[in-house]
């Protein structure tokens, strides 16, 4: 390795590239130091939680999953476990994986822009914020028996009995759910023809299917909160 050589002026390149050493490496090094110092500083002052020895006979109340899953646990209030705990997270993961293959908008590749990809950014940011709002509710606002408490309220076991819930009649439920997906798929395709044509039938159907599932999940929550609806569709085999 020849290292002692004549000092040369920096070669001018036409592109916008800079040497990784030291421009980028220095920043990474600094970031690593800040993260380490931050973590150690925090760890010095704040202890990791440790409760008493596990006891299968005495359930924690409320028993909460780790905070990053509390959004899903919060959804459990409104849906059966097969949906909130299995189907919904699977759909979320699948949807995330599919994003690059669904979004065929060539604009906004490699820079920040909202105006060139309004639909994509709005949808993603909505889902992202929803995920963290649900986590916040599940973490901070749910007390014993998963009862809801505002931040200024004391957690007690003495809270009013929630109103009784009722299921929608099966035919109505099927019409509502089917109509929701049908209208949600058909209307934008008719109203926003350009959007539909750019995506094509397959991309459009999957994109809208995922979007409608996300929005529908929120709508079901509203149904529960506003009208005390337990299930949109109640059958002996599966409930939604």
């Amino acid at each position, binding site marked *: 390795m020849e290292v002692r050589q004549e000092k040369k002026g920096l070669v001018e390149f036409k592109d*916008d590239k800079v040497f*990784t050493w030291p421009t980028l490496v220095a920043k990474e090094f600094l970031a690593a130091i800040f993260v380490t110092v931050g*973590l150690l500083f925090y760890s010095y002052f704040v202890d990791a939680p440790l409760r008493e*020895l596990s006891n299968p006979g005495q359930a924690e109340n409320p028993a909460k999953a780790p905070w990053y899953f509390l959004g*899903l646990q919060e959804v459990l209030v409104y849906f059966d476990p097969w949906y909130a705990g299995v189907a919904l997270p699977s759909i979320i993961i699948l949807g*995330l994986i599919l994003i690059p293959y669904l979004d065929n908008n060539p604009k906004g590749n*490699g820079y920040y822009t909202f105006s060139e990809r309004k639909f*994509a950014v709005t949808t993603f940011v909505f889902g992202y914020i929803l995920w963290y709002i649900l986590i916040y509710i599940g973490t901070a606002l749910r007390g014993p028996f998963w009862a809801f408490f505002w931040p200024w309220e004391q957690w007690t076991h003495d809270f009013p009995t929630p109103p009784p819930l009722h299921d929608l009649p099966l035919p109505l439920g099927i019409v509502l759910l089917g109509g929701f997906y049908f209208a949600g798929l058909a209307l934008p395709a008719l109203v926003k023809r350009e959007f539909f044509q750019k995506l094509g039938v397959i991309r459009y159907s999957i994109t809208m299917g995922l979007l409608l599932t996300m929005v529908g999940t929120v709508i079901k929550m509203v149904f529960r909160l506003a009208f005390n609806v337990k299930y949109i569709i109640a059958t002996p085999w599966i409930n939604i």
Partner: protein
Amino acid sequence: MKLIPDLIKKITDNEIWRSVFRHGYTDTPRNRALQIISNVWLHLHPAKVREHGTKIRFTWCMGGITFFIFLFETITGILLMFYYVPDVNRAYADIVDLMYVVPFGRFLRNSHRWGAHAMVITVSIHMFRVFLTGSYKPPRQFNWVVGVVLLVLTFLLSFTGYLLPWDQLGYWAITVGTNMARATPFLGHEGPFSYILGMRPDNDIRFALLGGTLIEAPALLRAYVWHCIGIPLVASALMMVHFWRVRKDGGISGPL
């Protein structure tokens, strides 16, 4: 201001320094490139990068920080493994020992725990940034997929670690989490249509996860092995792919 050059000369221009460092570093383009490409660790990077890719305001540095926290967790995790045995009769006592007896044990455990939380946060911010810059667009579609899998693995790493202290917090959190598995359609004994496959509590998917119908010794051992060996191995392999693909897909994303 000759203070710093003088100081540098004092430190470096003597026999001891020269016995350790055989030659100096001349700041030439060639040497800047060599610093990267002749270094086994740094040559993860290309010798040159597009300037906007070095800006914190573009990358937020979150991917790099996530990787760094993974390394941090590996080191603190290995140290914790010296003091912790995944045996239901010992696990909790080992953690209490770490908190009260082992020198720096509390500090070690705290930093591993908070690092884990930090990693979940930074990886999700990284994903947010990658989305907002449209960096998943061609030709980087597949690297986004790898990233989503790494996100899930980060959750699972943290989740499996949650049980290890064997305290009420971890025990019931894992109870809540794994109870979801029994509601899996077809594969969980309480899930829709599970009767088709004849699912019972002792043969469904939750049983396979826990190694039993309850969270007992096999579940603790499984959590431990997945946490310390299984998932880190898979995650490391995928990280290699992830970083390699950043290079192969044309380096850091940017305006075309």
